[in-house]
């Protein structure tokens, strides 16, 4: 599985994102009590902490308490899974500066992982063909330029009507089958999946097969073998699709790209990246976002009363939830950030969730407030890799949230909030399912 999303290059952030360890094994450092010293440099005697994970152990929407405790300084040393001593950026300004700086590389083979990822080698191989998230300029620029024209604000807005139609179809089916539904299965996953089908030009006849494979790949309960098999099947399908588009181009991204000098393998790989980046990310924003709104009734009521707030609410939910996190970079040369030197070869873990809760940038950051100006959040990354699909993600969320609230005025959780199953071991945070119910009209 490629990791990332829209790395910036596709629909939500860049990664690779570290999998969280299994429940209960949250890594905490010995010194997680916020120390208020103003000392900037770490003394040799101080053992750097490891990356705190496990949002599911506290409020499901907040960063782990240990991470918040480490956010007293914008940048600090961090101990990596393989023993590497690198850095952790938690301050918004520091994170933004690092992501914008070409002296930091995105190449997977240069990165150290902050926490061990089961099944992933300690030393990452270079990015697979088509996964532009793991490339630097000029290779990255060449690929990205072939794609950016397909993802403009104008083009994505033109897809609004289709998003509205898919959303209405999903809501119709949900209403007919209900009350009670799993929002993940009924709405959050199908809408982004259908939009990816539209982009890639997956024929209607193939969409069931496509959707069922996608469901297995992202099924947190499925075993690795089943998921790997589904992913291989999907890549196989994408290869077939590329050949079909070469033979008979239609109006979609893959057909467009067949006119470029990209190979079939590159095209299929790019298709896989768009899927990996554009589906799970948006699906989790929709489901976790609904959970967050249901947990903040005043915010939900405000959005239901004024759907014109949707654009702003989407930005705030992106900031507040930070589902794709963290983003990793490796210094290609010595770089000074916030008065500290990051040495050539050292990895920096940019904590999107911490940066998005930086009180210097967002006052009262732990409050979900859909009236705030949340632009400038780092949930789509920043810099040359900033999410390519972000405008599509915005359109999808701005359509789905208000439509859902309007369709079900009595929408509520069908289980106590603490029983909503959270994703504990995934590179994209969210809920495994979201049981909801409503009163029949």
């Amino acid at each position: 599985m490629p990791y990332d999303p829209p790395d910036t290059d596709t629909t939500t952030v860049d990664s690779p994102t570290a999998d969280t360890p299994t429940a209960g094994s949250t890594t905490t450092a010995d010194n997680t009590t916020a120390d208020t010293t103003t000392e900037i440099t770490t003394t040799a005697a101080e053992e750097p902490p490891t990356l705190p994970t496990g949002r599911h152990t506290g409020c499901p929407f907040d960063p782990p308490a240990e991470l918040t405790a480490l956010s007293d300084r914008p940048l600090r040393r961090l101990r990596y899974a393989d023993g590497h001593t690198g850095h952790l950026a938690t301050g918004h300004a520091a994170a933004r500066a690092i992501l914008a700086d070409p002296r930091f590389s995105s190449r997977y083979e240069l990165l150290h992982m902050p926490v061990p990822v089961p099944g992933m080698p300690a030393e990452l191989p270079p990015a697979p063909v088509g996964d532009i998230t793991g490339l630097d300029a000029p290779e990255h620029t060449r690929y990205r330029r072939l794609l950016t024209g397909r993802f403009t604000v104008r083009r994505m807005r033109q897809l609004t009507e289709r998003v509205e139609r898919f959303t209405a179809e999903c809501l119709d089916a949900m209403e007919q089958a209900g009350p009670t539904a799993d929002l993940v299965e009924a709405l959050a996953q199908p809408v982004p999946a259908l939009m990816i089908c539209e982009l890639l030009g997956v024929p209607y006849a193939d969409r069931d097969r496509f959707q069922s494979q996608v469901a297995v790949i992202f099924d947190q309960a499925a075993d690795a073998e089943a998921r790997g098999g589904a992913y291989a099947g999907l890549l196989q399908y994408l290869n077939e699709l590329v050949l079909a588009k070469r033979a008979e181009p239609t109006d979609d991204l893959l057909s467009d790209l067949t006119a470029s000098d990209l190979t079939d393998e590159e095209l299929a790989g790019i298709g896989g990246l768009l899927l990996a980046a554009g589906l799970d990310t948006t699906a989790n924003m929709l489901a976790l976002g609904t959970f967050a709104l249901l947990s903040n009734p005043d915010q939900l009521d405000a959005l239901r009363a004024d759907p014109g707030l949707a654009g702003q609410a989407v930005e705030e939910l992106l900031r507040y939830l930070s589902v794709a996190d963290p983003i990793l970079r490796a210094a290609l040369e010595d770089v000074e950030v916030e008065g500290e030197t990051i040495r050539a070869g050292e990895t920096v873990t940019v904590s999107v969730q911490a940066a998005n809760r930086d009180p210097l940038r967002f006052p009262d950051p732990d409050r979900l407030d859909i009236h705030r100006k949340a632009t400038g959040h780092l949930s789509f990354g920043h810099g040359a890799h900033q999410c390519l699909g972000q405008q599509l993600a915005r359109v999808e969320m701005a359509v789905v949230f208000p439509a859902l609230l309007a369709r079900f005025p009595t929408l509520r959780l069908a289980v106590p909030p603490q029983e909503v199953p959270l994703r504990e071991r995934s590179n994209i945070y969210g809920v495994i399912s979201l049981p909801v119910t409503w009163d029949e009209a």
Partner: protein
Amino acid sequence: MSDRHEPLRIEVDRDRCAGAGMCALTAPEVFDQDDEEGLVVLLRPDPPPEHRPTARMAAGLCPAGAITVGENGDAERAGP
């Protein structure tokens, strides 16, 4: 900065542009994207006062630092 009388000079660098669309989203009266590569197109190098705040915000949000806002003759690139 008195926006009312000082001329504003915006410049864009299409070589740096990453095609993320933040400028066209934030200040559509000032910035657009071309349909081929999705790269920034500057519609108004000297936007009228009512569009200046969003133009400055767009410069600050640009992920690639491709937008420069110059005032009083000295251009300064916003962002990184």
